[in-house]
């Protein structure tokens, strides 16, 4: 097998909640104690993105999927673990050394209303990154490049002198995609790129992303909560729960035969057009806060198959015969 384009190794990310040293000191039971609290957003994630694929990361809010995206892009620095791009470790590079990777890796954001600078015209928005990464290009080269990306995302080059707020959400997202494509990236992290858009616009943007993948040979890390999109778009899927990957499989395999109890519940919760009556797998309770992680398997509190082992021991991702990797004791023991 060829080496992966991006590999995430043992990634952990904690956000400190307790503030400065003074704020950490509390008075409890007659004595002063230092109390530290942190949100454990990611707790040991290993993922490899192969060249040319679209790896989808799904999960509910608070599962750490966006944190994974932002850490890969260097917007957050990992608390532990490494990020490699094309064999080179990139999470510890500083400004100058990271620059080539900034061009190769781009990001598309969730909210097209916030991801365009309101004080910049479309022309300026697209021109700045090109000039920044290609200072030696002539004005004509820059102009041609802008025209090329605007054309490829289906926006009229005459719109260049207008501002972002003059456009609809779908058009803005196209402009944001054009900005990412302007520097000819190889790898794009898309963080919920369509969830802020209307249904009919979602299809347009998804098609656009798929066209770009085909014509430019892009690799995607696609973050979403929408399983229907994953089924349509993804090559492989990683299902996350409370900062851990609980199932990793080819899209078709995962949708045909979900193994992890959480994946099963998630799949059955999608409202379908066909049936009249919902028949969900009901989960107990809600997602616990990532401040105090449950011991053992993070899902055990809501899992109908949990036993003592699940409450104590953290399950590891283990390959099953179907090609799926599952982190579940019940699956490993054959109980499920």
């Amino acid at each position, binding site marked *: 097998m060829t080496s992966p384009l991006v590999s995430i190794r043992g990634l952990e990310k904690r956000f400190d909640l307790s503030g400065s040293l003074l704020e950490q000191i509390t008075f409890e039971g007659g004595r002063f104690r230092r109390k530290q609290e942190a949100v454990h957003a990611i707790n040991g994630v290993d993922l490899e993105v192969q060249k040319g694929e679209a790896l989808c990361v799904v999960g*509910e809010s608070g599962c750490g999927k966006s944190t994974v995206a932002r850490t890969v892009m260097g917007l957050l620095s990992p608390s532990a673990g490494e990020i490699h791009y094309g064999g080179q470790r990139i999470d510890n590079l500083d400004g100058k050394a990271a620059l080539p990777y900034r061009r190769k890796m781009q990001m598309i954001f969730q909210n097209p209303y916030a991801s365009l600078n309101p004080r910049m015209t479309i022309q300026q928005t697209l021109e700045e990154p090109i000039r920044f990464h290609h200072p030696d290009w002539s004005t004509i080269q820059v102009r041609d490049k802008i025209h090329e990306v605007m054309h490829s995302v289906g926006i009229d080059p005459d719109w260049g002198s207008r501002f972002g707020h003059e456009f609809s959400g779908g058009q803005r997202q196209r402009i944001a995609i054009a900005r990412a494509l302007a520097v000819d990236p190889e790898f794009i992290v898309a963080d919920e790129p369509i969830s802020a858009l*209307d*249904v*009919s616009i979602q299809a347009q943007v998804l*098609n656009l992303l*798929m066209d770009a993948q085909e014509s430019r040979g892009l690799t995607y890390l696609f973050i979403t909560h929408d*399983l229907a999109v994953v089924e349509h778009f993804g090559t492989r899927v990683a299902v996350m729960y409370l900062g851990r990957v609980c199932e990793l499989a080819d899209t078709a395999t995962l949708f045909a035969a979900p193994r992890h109890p959480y994946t099963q519940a998630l799949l059955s919760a*999608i409202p379908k057009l066909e049936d009249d009556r*919902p028949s*969900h797998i009901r989960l107990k309770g809600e997602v616990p806060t990532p401040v105090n992680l449950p011991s053992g398997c993070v899902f055990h509190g809501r899992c109908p198959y949990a036993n003592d082992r699940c409450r104590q021991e953290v399950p590891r991702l283990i390959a099953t015969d179907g090609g799926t990797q599952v982190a579940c004791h019940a699956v490993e023991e054959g109980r499920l």
Partner: protein
Amino acid sequence: MALLEVKNLDVRFAVRGGDLTALRGISFTLDKGERLGLVGESGAGKSVAAFSVLNLIAKPGYIAGGQILFEGKDLAAMSERELRKIRGNRIAMIFQDPMMTLNPVLTIGTQMVEAILAQRKISKKEARAIALDRLQKVQIPSPEKRLDQYPHELSGGMRQRVIIAIALLLDPEIIIADEPTTALDVTIQAEIMDLLLNLCEQENVALMLITHDLGVVSQVTQRMLVMYSGRIIEQGPTREIINDAQHPYTQGLINALPQMGEPGERLFQIPGSMPSLKNVPSGCPFHPRCNFATEQCKQSMPEYVRSGNVDVACYEVANLIEQEKRMQEAES
């Protein structure tokens, strides 16, 4: 007589440079215990429609024409005082964001008791008992405890349950739910939707569900109406529309869903986007995005025609029906 009948409702927004028409000629009915879905994308006017049913449109919006008949009385012509007796009491509303309804500095119990006492002359103790009963109905774990908690102490799903409990407090005739689960996670969303559905059936409450999610509509409602640019373009039994949509927009909306496409293939897409209220196209507002648009569509808004049990406003559909009729006549 229908419980709620909206007739030819026009809603406008007075802005600089003239009025914007947010709703044009909206007509629909809601029977007792019926579940009706309002589907549309943002800007279609579905939330305005929901708010105008309660005559709750904030300035600069106003009802420019039409009637909203609730049990035969016109809400559009009622005084603020009369309306207050209906809002929250006979017709309850659930919003997308629970914090729009919940006051963050008061306990759940206080807020529920207050809501009851505003409409009923009973003691605080009795009101509290009603509140507790409703919290039990929405299956909140340890409801006694929740009464003395503040909204921020509850999780998102729990808050939405409280909101539903508040909506049920005064045994309303109608619940209007505006995207009640959009802010929630998939698994929680499914639970809340189940709950709402079961409660409406048990209590025989009519539900008006505003959503952009066709999946939710198809599972919860019996009838649906599809809105586009302030107009109802298609309305009828949910199953019939989902299985065999007539209007090109509804068809497009359904076919654009990722689950309708083959994995890895391009999705069906409707070109362009919903026009803003400032420049609604002439004739059928959908015509610039429609594959079947003719000269006629550009000029005048189509009347409703009936196809099966569905009312559709589309010339193309009307022509097809006409053709079919002629073929049948020719055969006989």
